[in-house]
């Protein structure tokens, strides 16, 4: 908990008159699972897209691995999973993996090994040769996660990774996050599910484009005198 992997400094963004992000400053440290908590429309996805290199802030800067984003060589070290499953449904899972692996320059033995590892991590090894169009929603979500892990990124950015996934699977996905964390991967995850937020090492609460609070779940509950994360969120939101 010493090096900031992600450093967001006074970032604002507006689409026309609509202020999506308003002066956000935040640091995420090596090896932690950081949760970005907030209702839909709060600006989570916009912030996360900036960190993935897809968008740029109107004011302020984003630093990843101490370098200013966006940069192509930084993008290589980031794993990103968007809110919607970006998969080629007319190909098999294996073909999807092969394609993305090649984009990140993996080949030969290494590629094969990584493909097996990530598929095992999301328990999809038995469905490797299936067409993605035959996958269920949860399976697609897990395949997307597997793809974002292929190139062993140091920073994993996951936008609503467990939406539409049943509780059993959700638990297994969180367990895989913990295993990744143990290997030193920093994980940034957005969520609007309060009980999921409790599993993060630290939380950032975001509402109407503003960061209303940040800290460990315990700190946040103590400071606001709330019994759970949801009450804490409401307390910080001024309700």
């Amino acid at each position: 908990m010493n090096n900031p992997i992600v450093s967001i400094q006074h970032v604002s963004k507006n689409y026309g008159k609509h202020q999506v992000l308003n002066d956000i400053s935040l640091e995420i440290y090596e090896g932690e699972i950081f949760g970005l908590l907030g209702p839909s429309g709060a600006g989570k996805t916009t912030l996360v897209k900036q960190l993935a290199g897809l968008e740029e802030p109107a004011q302020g800067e984003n630093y990843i691995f101490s370098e200013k984003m966006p940069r192509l060589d930084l993008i290589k070290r980031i794993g990103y999973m968007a809110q919607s499953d970006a998969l080629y449904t007319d190909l098999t899972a294996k073909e999807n993996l092969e394609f993305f692996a090649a984009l990140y320059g993996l080949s030969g033995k290494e590629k094969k090994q990584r493909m097996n590892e990530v598929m095992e991590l999301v328990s999809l090894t038995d469905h490797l040769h299936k067409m993605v169009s035959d996958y269920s929603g949860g399976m697609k979500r897990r395949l997307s996660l597997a793809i974002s892990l292929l190139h062993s990124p140091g920073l994993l950015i996951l936008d609503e990774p467990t939406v539409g996934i049943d509780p059993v699977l959700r638990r297994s996905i969180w367990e895989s996050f913990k295993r990744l964390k143990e290997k030193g991967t920093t994980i940034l995850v957005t969520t609007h599910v309060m009980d999921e937020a409790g599993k993060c090492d630290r939380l950032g609460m975001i509402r109407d484009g503003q960061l209303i609070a940040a800290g460990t779940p315990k700190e946040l509950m103590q400071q606001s005198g709330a019994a759970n994360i949801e009450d804490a969120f409401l307390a910080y939101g001024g309700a």
Partner: protein
Amino acid sequence: MRIMALVIRILRQIVRDKRTMALLILAPILVMTMLHLVFNGDEYTPKMGLVDLPEKIEAQLNLEHAKLEYYETEKLAENDLSGKKLDAYLMFDQTPPSVVLEGSDPNVNGAVMRWVQGALKPLQPNGGNQEIKADYLFGSGDMGQFDYFGPVLLGFFVFFFVFLIAGVSFLRERTTGTLERLLTSPLRKWEIVTGYIIGFGIFTMIQAAIIAWYTIYVLGMMMEGAFGYVLLITVLLSLTALTLGILLSSFANNELQMIQFIPIIVVPQIFFSGLFNLETISEWLSWVGPFTPLYYAAEALRNVMVRGFGWEMIYKDLLILLAFSLLFMILNIAALRRYRKI
């Protein structure tokens, strides 16, 4: 390496989608076959040259309904004929007079021959029907409508289908979020565009070869030049279709909107590609032709297939097609900046 990954993925997707693949190859074949069966006539004012015409004969001739030029020698007339300033010229060095036609457009050939029959009628005693000797610079008297239309249609169908398929597949890449996903990988914007072009290019080459082979060798379309040139022209044309399709897909939000480009972008090209005689098109519209890729491809195809010309007569058209593709490619890369600045 990264481009190759993209190429392999695109080819896999095409091969998997059997129906689209069949559409790309069988639909043009089907339409060409139908046209072949259907076409086999609008009055046109021929441009006639009259070589060394004795005055006393001229007084007898019926020279209305044609644009006339007078020549001293056959050589001068021949020059203008190959320069397409003339449709045909008449020679009066023997009786009956003989006619030499440019010959590549059967419509024009027909009009010329009808006019010649009419013009020379007063010369023929007792209204007898003497056979007039006709020579063709290109083509021949037995060239059908289809032989003239064929090269344009060949180009058109290749253009049409490649435009549609490439546009829709790039659109899908955008709407399903995979484009965004590609842009969060180290793939560069030009690599995406190049990957698409090579991937579809390989398939298009196969498509163009099959369709050209079928129309020429099965349907028996006139083919005076080299097959290799036909292939080269169609491949370059499909490259423009491909890059234009991908470009326009950024202005469409769904497949239906992509289809809406067909009557706006694709169909008008056919009017200016020489399928209809450009001189019969209103002047205020005829300037459109040089802005359409199909105009150049059709001209080049006709030069090879009907007139049997080679490289020196088609290379300019090919360069223009290539320039169109390059322009569209650059615009494509610029359009991708909307999704990622670097």
